[in-house]
């Protein structure tokens, strides 16, 4: 491969692993040992928020409730993200394995995979894999069952508490927090909810050891991550890369030579313009991402990009809280009005303030993160918004 400054990693999809052995070995370990491994590895959630996975498991394991659950968040709806689909297609047994180890640690007998409706075509294969998995855990004498629940086209259901509501047969409206899922999740029982990729990493850490994972990445962002790379790139696709790279190196490798901006983290992430590539680190200390990297070259109108994002949020907001429901509509109508000249450029400042309010006062992560793309695009491409 030419020009590979960025370190390729092969953990998630590695074939050098017999899931049965890993599972059998780990189910024999003590919960403390497993938790220690996950904590020591420095693994943080790969679904976006980046909460330390070991802590999440630990908190849930400490709850005294009889009933607990482990949920795999396979609602992958963030624009520009498609790695969970790939993982579920290629290594579903590792996902289930990660859930089983988590279940053992926290004391859950049931696990759920919440699969987005758009991935209905995956269901049959997943069920087949599940059959194999179930017969194996039975062999091991481990009392654990995984169920697959389908979404039906609602991005917000990827938000953990909305996901629980949806699993409970309701509208996917995020709940108030606290309480957090580790105390009150699915059916108001202590629940670990993890992203697909997080679960596989957890599983693989149990195989390769915390150290191997920990030595990758940076202080705040240990390990590697699966990136979904799309947009103006000649080599769009899925790549597992070490965390902590600079965006400059990334663009050098994945850009088409004319990259003007990269949207890191999908529509709810940040837009980084060319002049900031050099100083931008991909990771929790810099710009975090659930994996989505969208590249834009100079032929693209950043106004169109922003409008597309805002329209996405306007539709996909659950609609319950004021800042997000009405704010999204205002942001969209506002940038349109400015573009058409019906509102002066100063109105952009009003909209920026509105975006700030949405960030601090929305009920959930959706409304809170609209400002990420809005402000970063408006700040960096202001003239494109006006003319």
């Amino acid at each position, binding site marked *: 491969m030419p020009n590979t400054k960025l370190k390729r990693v092969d953990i998630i999809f590695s074939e050098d692993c017999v899931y049965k052995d890993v599972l059998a070995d780990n189910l024999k370990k003590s919960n403390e040992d497993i938790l220690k491994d996950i904590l020591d590895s420095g693994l943080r959630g790969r679904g976006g928020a980046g909460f330390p996975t070991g802590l999440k498991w630990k908190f849930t394991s400490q709850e005294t409730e009889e009933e607990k659950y482990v949920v795999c968040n396979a609602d992958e709806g963030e624009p520009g993200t498609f790695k969970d689909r790939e993982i579920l297609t290629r290594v579903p047994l590792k996902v289930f394995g990660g859930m089983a180890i988590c279940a053992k640690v926290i004391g859950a007998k049931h696990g759920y995979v919440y699969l987005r409706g758009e991935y209905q075509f995956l269901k049959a294969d997943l069920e087949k894999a599940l059959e194999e998995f179930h017969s194996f855990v039975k062999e091991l004498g481990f009392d654990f069952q995984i169920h697959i629940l389908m979404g039906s086209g*609602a991005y917000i259901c990827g938000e953990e508490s909305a996901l629980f509501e949806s699993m409970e047969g309701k509208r996917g409206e995020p709940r108030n927090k606290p309480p957090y899922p580790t105390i009150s999740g699915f059916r108001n029982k202590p629940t670990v909810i993890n992203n697909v990729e997080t679960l596989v990493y957890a599983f693989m850490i149990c195989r390769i050891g915390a150290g191997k994972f920990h030595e990758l990445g940076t202080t705040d962002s240990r390990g590697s991550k699966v990136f979904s790379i799309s947009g103006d790139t000649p080599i769009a696709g899925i790549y597992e890369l070490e965390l902590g790279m600079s965006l400059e190196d990334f663009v050098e490798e994945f850009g088409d030579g004319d990259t003007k901006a990269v949207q890191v983290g999908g529509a709810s992430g940040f837009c980084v313009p060319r002049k900031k590539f050099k100083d931008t680190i991909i990771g929790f200390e810099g710009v975090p991402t659930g994996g989505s990297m969208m590249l834009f070259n100079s032929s693209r109108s950043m106004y169109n990009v922003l409008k597309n994002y805002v329209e996405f949020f306007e539709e996909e907001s659950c609609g319950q809280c004021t800042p997000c429901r009405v704010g999204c509509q205002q942001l969209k109508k506002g940038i349109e009005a400015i573009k058409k000249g019906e509102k002066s450029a100063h109105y952009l400042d009003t909209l920026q303030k509105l975006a700030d309010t949405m960030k601090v006062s929305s009920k959930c992560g959706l409304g809170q993160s609209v400002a990420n793309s809005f402000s970063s695009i408006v700040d960096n491409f202001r003239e494109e918004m006006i003319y």
Partner: protein
Amino acid sequence: MANTVKLNIDGIDVSIEAGKTVLDAAKKLNIHIPTLCYHEDLCVAGNCRVCVVEQEGVKNLVASCAMPAQDGMVIHTNTHKVRNARRHVVELLLSEHNADCTKCYKNTRCELQDLAGEMVINEHMFLDLVPDKNYTIDNLSPAIIKDDSKCIRCQRCVRTCDELQHVSALGVAYKGEHMKISTFFENPMYEVVCTNCGQCVIRCPTGALVEKNYLDNVWDAIYDEDKHVIVQTAPATRIALGEDLGMEAGSIVTGKMAAALRRLGFDSVLDTDFTADLTIMEEGTELLTRLKRALVDKDPTVKLPMTTSCSPGWIKFIEHMYPEYLENVSTCKSPQQMFGALAKTYYAEKRGIDPAKIVSVSIMPCTAKKFEANRPEMRDSGYQDVDMGLTTRELAVMIKQAGIDFKELPDEKFDSLMGKSSGAAVIFGATGGVMEAALRTAYEIVTGREVPFKNLNITPVRGMEGVKEAAVKIENVLPAWSFLEGVELKTVVAHGLTNANKVMQAVKNGTADWHFIEIMACPGGCLGGGGQPIPTTPEIRKKRAEAIYREDAGMAIRKSHENPEIKQIYEEFLEEPLSHKSHWLLHTHYQARKRE
């Protein structure tokens, strides 16, 4: 004190019970935090975001209504960040809102308007979204108008209809920009399972859900020389009306109300309490008859337990939800409708007035009464028995419109002939009141003695418990009632339809052995009715209930059967309870309705 937490709000330390919210703690310090979606009677939604405050060490603002108070929290309720956010929230709501206050029924009585006023909103900050919306107004119901262009999507109505009423006629539909409050398939309220109870109306902070008002119709009738306009006032109006006219919750304004009605120009000021007493005579007798048929005649067709029928919200609920139990409902019409039927017969006859010229108006704590008055079943006098049902709130509006200084009015009496009542009728306004009134009379009919409760106060059926059971052992009966000797009469009282549903579930599952069930659709009974002054809170309802029992205790006559006008109407007109005539005018049957 393990169960309290200590926090600091705006520089002041406060301790509060664990489990309470930051909003509760602020209230304790008399710090006012604006709220919209929050309502004391409902579970926390945390969706309007107007109650946000700043918590030290936390990046985002927190919704005070939804944030549990925690040890060591340092909260600021009045900072630049908080102010900006709250203002934005209100501006955003207004941008989605048809903010045409001068043309709005809730003008001057609207929580959104109050907030906008407090924030001194002039020029709107954001673009007007209303033209992009496809807002509709549903005004087909005789009771409730739903105007989506006034809705701020706080979901108070949805939570009310679900949590308090177990109806869920209203739900949240769609998502994102299209999210709205909707009935099943957006059908008119009139056609769905809605009971017209109006509990959503008294909790809606804006003009999105309001009663259909008949103010102009009533004024027109009053001004019409040719019409004889009579008015009846329900038991629960007299302990709540004052709240809308500058008085404290719990003020008893019976006399002032009568005076005001006379000044408004009603030709005769009468009292639904009279027919409440009549209801007791009819319903009590009906219960005893059913018991006799069941116990003596062993008639398998007789339906027990018998339920009350005065609450039109309850009637519509059972029509939709438990139609198989309609036969268990007392055939008595509600006091409003008994009054209406008698107004255009007995009253017309006695007064020598052509019933065609009588306009019969009722003042009710209730929005469902509007629907009830319009029922096809309610035309036994040959006319629509009650022409217009107004809420307590509408009466307050009329009093203001007429320029009457209500607080300064003298106490006046109701006119006679259908104007006299007993304390038993007054307590109809509180949950348990019908039961207590019925027991006072029925027990005495059967035994010849007063109910064995101190001062006639049957306390087990009083109070705000959702479901209250009481049993009365009947002993030493009069000879005619020997079949009841030793029988323990089992009763249950429920208020709020969620509690009614619990009772009906027990009946359905056969886990209950009650004889008589009192159900009022509204929390607290009629005193918490959907037509009562806004706001409603547990505290306010408690004060209203206290006022009702004070009024009862102060009455010379405490038992329905001792009301002289009741004796008179049986002598002169109805003959006896359950007579042919009373069946014709005072009783009815209801129809099953579909569940959607």
